[in-house]
């Protein structure tokens, strides 16, 4: 308590600029300056993309050219319509939502079974699920490609969603969260004879809102940013996702048929959904990350 008071006093002193704390004050200004520079470096590339996406040609050879142009509406329209980015974005959105919703339901089920059921071999099952962390797409995409062809799923949304539905990470995070719900609450439910469905819908899920939002954002960002697998398994443009759509734009711009301002418009569009979700839901997202590490 005393420490807290002293701390508060010292901080207040620093704000008033008391001479005793001048050094800290000075260091703090330096800290802000360094932060400004680093933040600038981190934001700069994307700021350039944003500015260029509003220009006519996207020829920006010097820093002096970095002023917004007046072709924003035209460029974004062209990217969305003429270069089918609207279609790609929609495909990405559909893929991501199916993955998020599917993963969420399936993982809540699995975590519920692992935490709240007294059944044999449960730990073994959990290990079996955790072990899939060792099997990322690059380890198995060749046979997976053949499997999708055999199933006739190539080029469909099934191919880019179903293999992602099982998630060790999501099950793990949910399990950790469920384990943090006090046992006495669970036991109260048992004494009251609350059945599994009622327990899940009226106790478990309402008590997990933050984590459910957090893992949903993690899953969405992960799904939306998938590049390698859609590149391999989707080869019709109509079914393509935004990430690979960017690759198509890149081919065109390198070939000189396309202006960079359109590529930057496409990039900005592709960045927006995960970025906005992250900014809006940063609080539950950060809380969920702190569970993940445990």
């Amino acid at each position, binding site marked *: 308590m005393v420490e807290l008071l002293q701390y508060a006093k010292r901080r207040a002193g620093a704000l008033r600029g008391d001479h005793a704390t001048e050094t800290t004050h000075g260091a703090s200004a330096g800290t802000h300056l360094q932060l400004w520079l680093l933040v600038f470096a981190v934001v700069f590339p994307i700021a350039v993309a944003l500015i260029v996406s509003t220009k006519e040609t996207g020829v920006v050879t010097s820093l002096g050219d970095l002023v917004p142009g007046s072709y924003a509406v035209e460029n974004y329209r062209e990217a969305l319509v003429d270069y089918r980015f609207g279609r790609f974005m929609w495909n990405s959105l559909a893929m991501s939502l199916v993955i998020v919703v599917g993963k969420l339901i399936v993982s809540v089920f699995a975590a519920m079974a692992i935490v709240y059921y007294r059944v044999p071999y449960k730990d073994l099952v959990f290990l079996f699920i955790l072990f899939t962390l060792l099997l990322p797409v690059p380890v198995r995409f060749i046979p997976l490609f053949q499997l999708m062809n055999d199933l006739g799923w190539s080029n469909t949304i099934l191919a880019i969603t179903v293999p992602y539905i099982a998630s060790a990470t999501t099950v793990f995070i949910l399990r950790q969260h469920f384990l943090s719900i*006090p046992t*006495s*609450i669970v*036991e*109260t*439910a*048992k*004494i*009251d*004879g*609350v*059945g599994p469905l*009622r327990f899940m819908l*009226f*106790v478990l899920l*309402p*008590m997990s*809102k933050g984590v459910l939002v957090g893992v949903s954002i993690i899953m969405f960002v992960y799904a939306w940013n998938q590049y390698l697998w859609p590149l391999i398994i989707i080869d019709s443009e109509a079914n393509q996702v935004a990430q690979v759509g960017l690759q198509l734009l890149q081919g065109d711009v390198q070939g000189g048929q396309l202006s960079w301002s359109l590529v930057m418009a496409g990039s900005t569009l592709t960045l927006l959904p995960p970025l906005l979700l992250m900014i809006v839901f940063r609080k539950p997202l950060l809380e969920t990350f702190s569970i993940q590490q445990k």
Partner: protein
Amino acid sequence: MTTVTLQNLRKEFGDVVAVKGIDLEIEDGEFLVIVGPSGCGKSTTLRLLAGLEATTGGRIEMDERDVTGVEPKDRNVAMVFQNYALYPHMTGRRNITFGMKSSGDFTDEEIERRVEDAAETLDIVDLLDRKPEAMSGGERQRVALGRAIVRDPDAFLMDEPLSNLDAKLRIQMRAELARLHSALETTTVYVTHDQTEAMTLGERVVVMNDGQIMQVDEPQALYDFPANRFVAEFIGDPAMNMIPVDIEDGRAVHDAFTLPLPSVDEPASTDRNGAGDAPLGDTQRAVLGIRPEDFHLPDARSDDGLPRIDAEVNVREPLGDSLLLHCSIGATSCNIQAAPRTAVRAGETVSVTYDPARLHLFDAETGDAFYHSESHHSTDEQVLSRASK
């Protein structure tokens, strides 16, 4: 209207035996407190009663119905937890009704009526529309009690329900629980580690240690006639002094003193405590138990013909209502409770006497009590005469 019987109840967790075969009869409408240090098996016993743990051996009967393997929900008991166990996302009302609605045994009107009754009884009408986060600890525990009583269970099981409250609120809630029990008269089993709670709330108190029952008795009897060293030291604060002595010809002999042991008309306490009736004539090693408040400084009692014991004061602790002296009697440390403003200094040697009616002897090996200097019979008179003063 429920009696609960435990027969040879056992619970093992792997290699650890938490409850070592206990027998206990809980009477209809009784407020029974189980008290003991942490890890003594008291909570496990309660959880076995609730059905939250499966028994390893033995039987649990409620009203002569064997409920040993019965699901918790079919035992018709309600449990109150230390951390209240309220659903954080539900209002007080919904917390109270959620379990009832789950069971499907009650109509909506019935539930509504009972909630109103319970809210009135517990004075929580204002809390019904609030969520737990907007309630204080005491309010939360009241709502948790409300949830327990609306179901009109056969038994309340309470697991340290007051331990999360601050000292003042705890005393207040203690009185309220007592009031609630006298109003409802529902069989209640209450687990606590706090001996004051046990003594003040329990109609009978079970003292447990190491998975076994040490003694079951009314609070005052536990205090006056502890069946063994464990109970003697656990009940009472500051704890009873334990002084190693030799018994010779009806006297307790210590390096620093010799005191006569009044003969007892009833042989020592076999009736209630099951302690052995070893004859006091033989020479044997024993432990003499005297509570700190049963010592007196000489001016407190004038010439009473009792031997004086020299005690060297090491530390004095003024407690306000009394003065606690940490002393050495010979090589033995002892606590002596004196009148609050007694002029005694550390380093001084005082001459003390004792209450001859409050001596206890415990077997040096087993720790079982084999002698109390006063029989139960005479205690009652003593209580009366003290009360009249």
